[in-house]
């Protein structure tokens, strides 16, 4: 019997609100299945299960806000004998009852959940997010006062009919993202303050010649339909993944007073949300993917992140992060490590600059790379090797 718990989706997350169960009691589940949607400061996140088995019991109902670590469901593991009591609220007899472990004690007084557990249907929540209706102001007409779709729809109609002076300043058509940007700003601030407080950062910078990569990309894309084209970001993701595989002190987590190297390379790719905020979900096993696959994953992530739909493992899995200013921005960026990771690589905006080729000065596209890394896991000498290695790989794009 396994407990499925409210996961921690970031250094700063204390609680989450269950928005939707996607599986019911008796449903079989397997590793990687999305079984619930949880609302956090980073938006609605799809939560995956890590066991194979059958849902025995759901312990938390939709709308409830519970601390990280709280058991949400019991899952009878696939190896265990089937018990007749599917749906019953008790554990199978031969197994020692799993105690419903309360959330681990936290420093400081345990604050009560900041808002009452409002019952809201998923459809109502989505409509509220799309129309910008504050769901707390909507009177519910569903079972036990639950706010259902039609309630939000009516509220939206009333808002539309209201005199313009009372209408919100946002244009009526603008769909909100379903992400509370103020809450996200708080989450980013919490994680970054912790990073700056706890992690002894050091920084290394290096300028990479982007001539070969730019020419290779132009040649490669010239013969491809748009859906098959690559962008520079995909090359940088792959170069970073290969480089940290060779220098493992930059790939992994610093936890419980020691560095745990990652046995796989999951590159978190920082994606800016339109309107502000960012998240850095993982491209799993980026070192082993071909460039076309990296590109496909990158496009998929950008689309899903901006739609406010991504998975719990994508937020917690990155073993190293890449932040990339893209082709419209500033020359360089000095990043801050996202704990518990130990390194973050930043790429500035490529720009044409004077560059020496032999004794001649030529115009060349160059890329400013920067590394922030954790001195508890590595030193500047190795950090310099990492950036030099990334630059070398970008100079030989056919090998990526």
């Amino acid at each position, binding site marked *: 019997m396994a407990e499925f718990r409210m996961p921690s989706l970031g250094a700063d997350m204390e609680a989450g609100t269950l928005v939707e169960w996607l599986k019911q009691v008796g449903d079989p589940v397997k590793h990687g299945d999305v079984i619930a949607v949880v609302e956090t400061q980073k938006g609605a996140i799809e939560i995956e299960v890590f066991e194979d088995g059958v849902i025995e019991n759901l312990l938390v109902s939709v709308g409830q806000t519970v601390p990280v670590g709280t058991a949400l469901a019991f899952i009878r593991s696939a190896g265990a004998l089937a018990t007749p009591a599917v749906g019953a609220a008790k554990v199978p007899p031969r197994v020692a009852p799993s105690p419903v472990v309360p959330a681990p004690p936290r420093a400081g007084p345990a604050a009560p959940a900041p808002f009452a557990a409002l019952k809201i249907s998923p459809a109502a929540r989505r409509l509220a997010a799309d129309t910008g209706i504050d769901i707390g102001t909507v009177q519910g007409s569903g079972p036990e006062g639950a706010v259902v779709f039609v309630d939000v729809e009516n509220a939206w109609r009333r808002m539309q009919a209201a005199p313009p002076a009372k209408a919100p300043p946002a*244009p009526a*058509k*603008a*769909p909100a993202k379903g992400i509370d940007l103020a809450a996200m700003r708080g989450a980013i601030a919490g994680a970054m303050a912790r990073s700056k407080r706890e992690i002894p950062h050091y920084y290394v910078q290096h300028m990479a010649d982007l001539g070969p990569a730019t020419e290779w990309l*132009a040649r490669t*894309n*010239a013969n491809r*339909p*748009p*859906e098959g*084209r690559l*962008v*520079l*970001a995909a090359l940088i993701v792959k170069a970073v993944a290969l480089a940290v595989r060779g220098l493992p002190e930059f790939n992994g987590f610093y936890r419980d007073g020691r560095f745990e190297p990652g046995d796989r390379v999951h590159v978190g790719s920082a994606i*800016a949300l*339109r*309107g502000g905020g960012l998240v850095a979900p993982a491209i799993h096993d980026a070192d082993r993917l071909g460039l076309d696959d990296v590109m496909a994953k*990158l*496009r998929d992530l*950008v*689309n899903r992140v901006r739609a406010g739909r991504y998975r719990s493992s994508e937020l917690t899995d990155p073993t190293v992060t890449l932040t990339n200013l*893209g*082709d*419209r921005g500033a020359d360089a960026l000095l990043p801050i490590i996202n704990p518990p990771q130990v390194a973050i690589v930043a790429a500035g905006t490529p720009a044409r600059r004077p560059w020496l080729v032999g004794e001649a000065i030529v115009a060349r596209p160059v890329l400013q790379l920067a590394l922030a890394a954790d001195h508890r896991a590595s030193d500047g000498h190795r950090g310099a090797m990492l950036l030099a290695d990334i630059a070398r790989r970008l100079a030989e794009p056919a090998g990526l």
Partner: protein
Amino acid sequence: MTRDELKRVLFVEIGNIAPEVDPATVGDDVDLREALDIDSISFLNLVIALKARLGVDVPELDYPKIRTLRAALDYLAARIGRG
């Protein structure tokens, strides 16, 4: 397809990548990517969508020719029907 119809299609597809802006408020001659803060992946999504909707495959070399609304409409109008 008239220029107005083409403009509507273009606005819908721009709306899909920059949902919070009204393309009608963007000047005809300003740089779309600058004005709407469109990154390279979103721009590629727009090019993919234009191919699906209009059958026009804009090669990378022609990206500068669809930099503004006016330029994009001129370019797409000329390319439609010629593949």
